């Protein structure tokens, strides 16, 4: 269970690390571990150096009395599952203030207060709320071009999912619903085809086929999802969107746009 948890976590952390957006400069180790399909000490050490992802896992593990790399823990964080509901609001609030480096504590306080402590330690919520709490001009004042850029950032950064339509060498054509910014709100757009990268040497991608649903991070197919996971990521993403849009509505109200 622990080995599969390490690999599941590594699959989802890999691409933003490769791009230099987070974590240590250990992309070679992570890729090697994924291709070998082994959760050796090297891979675990690299994953423990991520500034945000690893602390999130520790929070969920501590609250649910599980091993950090028990499969259900990274699954809760990246995809969503019942463990998220077992992390108390006050624990997440304290964690966000003390363990998440780089977040402005005043902004976090405002976020938690406006959402009545309903914030979940789910990766997509973290991503969406980062946009929502930022100083980017939002609402009607955000230009179409900027809204497009912000929407693409949120969509790339969250874990999304897509149904495989076509398998090519190193690339999959998938159908997915991107997140877009519309009138200062985050919305799921209609289904759209896009091309993403994948690594055939990472299990189970040697057997990926049309009809499979894959999780996506920065246009990289991380894993093939089960129907349970598909249900969960859909449900938790919808909940994240509702919470973040509630917060954005509060902000718009404060600016006198509500």
């Amino acid at each position: 269970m622990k080995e599969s948890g390490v690999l599941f976590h590594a699959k989802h952390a890999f691409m933003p690390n490769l791009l230099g957006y987070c974590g240590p400069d250990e992309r070679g180790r992570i890729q090697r571990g994924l291709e070998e399909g082994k959760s050796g000490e090297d891979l675990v050490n690299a994953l423990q150096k991520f500034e945000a992802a690893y602390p999130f896992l520790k929070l969920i593990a501590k609250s649910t009395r599980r091993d950090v790399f028990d499969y259900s823990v990274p699954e809760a964080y990246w995809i969503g599952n019942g463990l998220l509901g077992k992390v108390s609001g006050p624990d997440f609030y304290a964690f966000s203030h003390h363990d998440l480096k780089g977040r402005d504590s005043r902004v976090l306080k405002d976020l938690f207060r406006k959402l009545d402590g309903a914030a979940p330690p789910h990766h997509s919520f973290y991503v969406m709320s980062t946009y929502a709490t930022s100083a980017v001009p939002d609402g009607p004042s955000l230009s179409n071009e900027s809204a497009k850029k912000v929407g693409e950032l949120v969509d790339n950064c969250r874990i999304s999912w897509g149904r495989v339509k076509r398998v090519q060498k190193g690339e999959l054509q998938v159908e997915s619903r991107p997140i877009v910014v519309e009138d200062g709100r985050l919305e799921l757009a209609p289904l759209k085809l896009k091309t993403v990268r994948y690594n055939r040497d990472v299990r189970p991608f040697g057997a990926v086929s049309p009809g499979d649903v894959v999780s996506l991070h920065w246009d990289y197919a991380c894993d093939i999802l089960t129907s349970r996971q598909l249900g969960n990521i859909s449900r938790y993403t919808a909940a994240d969107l509702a919470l973040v849009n509630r917060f954005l509505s509060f902000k718009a109200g404060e600016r006198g746009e509500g």
Partner: protein
Amino acid sequence: MCVTRAGKAVSVSNGRARVEFFDGMALDDVDVSVVGAKKGEFVEVFGNLALSVLSTADARARKRAWREVRKAAGVQATGVAGS
């Protein structure tokens, strides 16, 4: 996952910047066009997009936070002039 990082836009050209972060890392192709950051300003970056221009006071506070983190790890924070 992406983390929010603060740093200095050390060069800006056509809305893209090289940003040197307080955590010691740097990115060469940060899109600063949404917030209109200029060379020498401090920015908060998520992924490859700047989401805020920070005041010098906020930048100093972020740098202090990173200095504490990096001190614990045995390295120095880089960045805010005059702080």
